[in-house]
């Protein structure tokens, strides 16, 4: 399957914007979000996409 969301990283402040995913990573602030997204991106070979509302998704293209 193409273009699958593998993980979601979200700051605690915006945690209620995401539901229903297995892999939701709740982080404390923007800096941690960026770091976690980068780590996940490299581990999962997936691309980090910024939804511009405090939510970053990791997508396998």
């Amino acid at each position, binding site marked *: 399957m193409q273009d699958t969301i593998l993980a979601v990283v979200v700051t605690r402040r915006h945690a209620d914007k995401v539901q229903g995913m297995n892999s939701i990573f709740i982080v404390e602030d923007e800096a941690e979000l960026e770091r976690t*997204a980068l780590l996940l991106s490299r581990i999962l070979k997936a691309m*980090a996409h*910024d939804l511009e509302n405090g939510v970053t998704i990791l997508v396998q293209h």
Partner: protein
Amino acid sequence: MCGSAAVPSGSSMKTYTEAILLGLAAGFLARLYMLRTDYRNYPAYPHGYVIHLSLGAIAASLAAIALPALLEEEYTAITFLVLCAQQFRDIRNMERETLINLEEHKLVPRGMDYIEGIAKVFESRNYLVMLVALVTTGAAIAGGLPAGLLGAGCMILFARFLMRGSFIGDIARVEAAALHFEKSLLYVDDIVIMNVGDAKAREKILREGVGIMLHPYDDDGRAILNDLGQRQALLHDISMLVGNKLEIGEPEWTPAARKNMETGALGIFLLPNEKDTGCVMEAARRTPVLESAVQKPLASTVGRKAAD
């Protein structure tokens, strides 16, 4: 070999020996010449040369023998030629399979359309070799050695002319374009390329990335740039010529081509090894127009009407 039965027996064949050898040599040289000129299409493995030169020699020998055989009224020779032409179709399959196997481990793949085009070219080159050998032998039989040599020279030039396709530079104006972000969206001029989530990746893209725009000259060019296989071929050729920083597990640097749906212009983004926009533009201009991408809406009345 299947062509051996085409050789007429008897002493009269000796008179053709010179012509046959000349045709064979001309055909072989034509194949060698065509291998040299297609560095871009050629998968760089030495055994490939051996395969194609051997098959070229076989094609040349068959064609060189054909005319003398006919003159000796050995009509079965022609049927053997047809049989062998059938064999050459396997070259296309062979090339296709090899390139598809290699494709798996390419960071920027050629794409199936490009592979199909290359495979077809390799098949057709053997027919060109046969044509060169046939005409050379004919000329040598009719006018002796000088005529044969002249025929060989002309035919090799003719083969070169036939092999020449058009390039992206012929169908579109290639220009440098600015890369910029609107929040997380990467743009080449006014074309959205992709969403980049990582702030550091955005900085790197702005610092080291290159954007170019391809403006088609007419609706035929627009249709060609619209073809996804052609776009992939562009990305592959540019990446091959100027290098690409793309790495496994780092999809942020994936080169991409997206069109402006209003004008048909194509925006290309990539992260070359060295930020040299001029070289990237030249590489784009030199990318061959794929046969499968060629569409000519302007050749039809409806297409011409729609274009104005």
